[in-house]
């Protein structure tokens, strides 16, 4: 079975973001970028399935600026076999990504697609289920465990009340939650090897899809700031403040 994983290049989760002065967006120039953490988990899961002999090939796909190819190299250093890079100038949103992915999947015919549950830049959390809908495939979102047996995937999902397990008929789309696995670090030899792995480049024109954003960003602002409060010396003062000043207990 072939597995397709999607990886997005985003501002590193440890970076404190800066909002552009004109309110048009978030500054991404000269900022540390990394693979979306949920996509690292997707890559790890796919590579493990290959190591277990369940998958025969793992292919990674990204949509983004030239530098997004580095993210594909990282995925290949983690064990992905080959990569597809689709050059995008300007913005591409979840719906556009899903439409384009559908075209790639029609051609690649994977048995399983693993994606992040959300990209930590837009926190939009929708590409996986939109894609699954377009393909007419079942979906296992927010996965914390994936078991493949025959033509079925058993996916344990993190839901608000606890955990739930669903059985999906393959091919299927799975989106990763944080507790699915602990992604590996790429070793230096594997980073070197990844440079030689095949990276195919495609254009949106070749895919012939409309990826015009349907969500126009009118403005981006900082959130209201909480004014820092005070430190209190002891529990008695705290109780007094909560009762008489904040009046919350």
């Amino acid at each position: 079975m072939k597995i397709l994983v999607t990886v997005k290049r985003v501002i590193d989760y440890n970076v404190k973001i800066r909002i552009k002065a004109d309110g048009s967006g978030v500054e991404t120039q000269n900022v540390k970028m990394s693979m979306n953490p949920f996509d690292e988990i997707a890559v790890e899961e796919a590579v493990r399935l290959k190591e277990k002999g369940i998958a025969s090939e793992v292919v990674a796909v990204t949509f983004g600026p030239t530098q997004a190819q580095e993210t594909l190299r990282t995925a290949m250093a983690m064990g992905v076999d080959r990569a597809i890079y689709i050059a995008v100038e300007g913005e591409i949103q979840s719906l556009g990504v899903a439409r384009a992915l559908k075209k790639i999947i029609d051609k690649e015919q994977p048995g399983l697609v693993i994606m992040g549950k959300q990209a930590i830049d837009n926190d939009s959390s929708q590409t996986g289920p939109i894609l699954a809908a377009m393909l007419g495939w079942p979906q296992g979102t927010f996965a914390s465990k994936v078991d493949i047996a025959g033509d079925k995937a058993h996916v344990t999902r993190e839901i608000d009340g606890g955990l739930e397990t669903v059985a999906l008929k393959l091919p299927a789309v799975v989106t990763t939650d944080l507790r699915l696995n602990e992604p590996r670090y790429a070793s230096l030899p594997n980073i070197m090897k990844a440079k030689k792995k095949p990276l195919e480049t495609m254009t949106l024109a070749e895919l012939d899809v409309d990826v015009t954003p349907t969500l126009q960003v009118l403005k981006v602002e900082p959130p209201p700031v909480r004014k820092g409060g005070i430190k209190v010396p002891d529990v008695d003062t705290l109780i007094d403040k909560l009762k008489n000043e904040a009046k919350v207990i």
Partner: protein
Amino acid sequence: MTTLILAEHDNAHLKPSTLHTIAAAAKLGAPVAVLVAGQNCAAVAAEAAAVTGIAEVLHADNAAYANFLAENVAALVAKLAPSYAHILAPATSFGKNILPRAAGLCDCAVVSDIIAIEGTDTFVRPIYAGNAIATVKSTDKIKFITVRSTAFDAATATGGNAAVKAVDGAGDAGLSAFVGAELSKSERPELTAARIVVSGGRGVGSGENFKMVIEPLADKLGAAVGASRAAVDAGYVPNDYQVGQTGKVVAPDLYIAAGISGAIQHLAGMKGSKVIVAINKDPDAPIFAVADYGIVGDLFDVVPALTSKL
């Protein structure tokens, strides 16, 4: 044109998240219909019909909807969708699973996790774990929207008298099956609806300590218990306790964080609380920057003292 809400429920009762979503929908200014899809859920449909401000309840009762499988429920939503301008669901694991699939079937995007409504096509939503707030205008033909409960009041559960109409979709899409669920049981209030939340982090050290130190304070205050991702990952508490960017978003009157450093991903889930108390032995922990009241000290001294003096 009417607004449709996909109700979150457990086949017995509406979830509070649905009432918040109804209140958000009311701001769009159009009549509001509620879809109750489930199995043996007539009581839920009746409950929805009694909510103030509902024009109509659509009741889809089918074994295929019993466990809210996205493949089955999204197909039903997509079938109904062309008659509506806006389709809303709560931004919970329920809504975030089903609504994007329904949107995908209609070749539309979702406006996720909105916190305000500026107009019929313009919405406000947090991005980058709440470190930026975006105002977006949707050009999709149908607006699919998930609503952050804490940003909207709850609609009044009584006073309405809407008509209930039976509807049906294709039923079982034959793609997926429900195998089972492990739901955490608790006598405490639900995390996202609680007036007070007591959360513990890695500093709590163990599941045992959660029981001996954090839970007694929560019980004294009638509070829900929350946790940081580090505490969940270490196995101190179940995953559904997690507060943050990828966990639950809470906005109680009082949030007490003990042994939590205050990573941005955690703050994303609790910064909207009215009053924040931080208990941490590190005076430089970032959590103090958002706390109204901070105590620098060992949580194993401070929390039990607080519990006994309250």
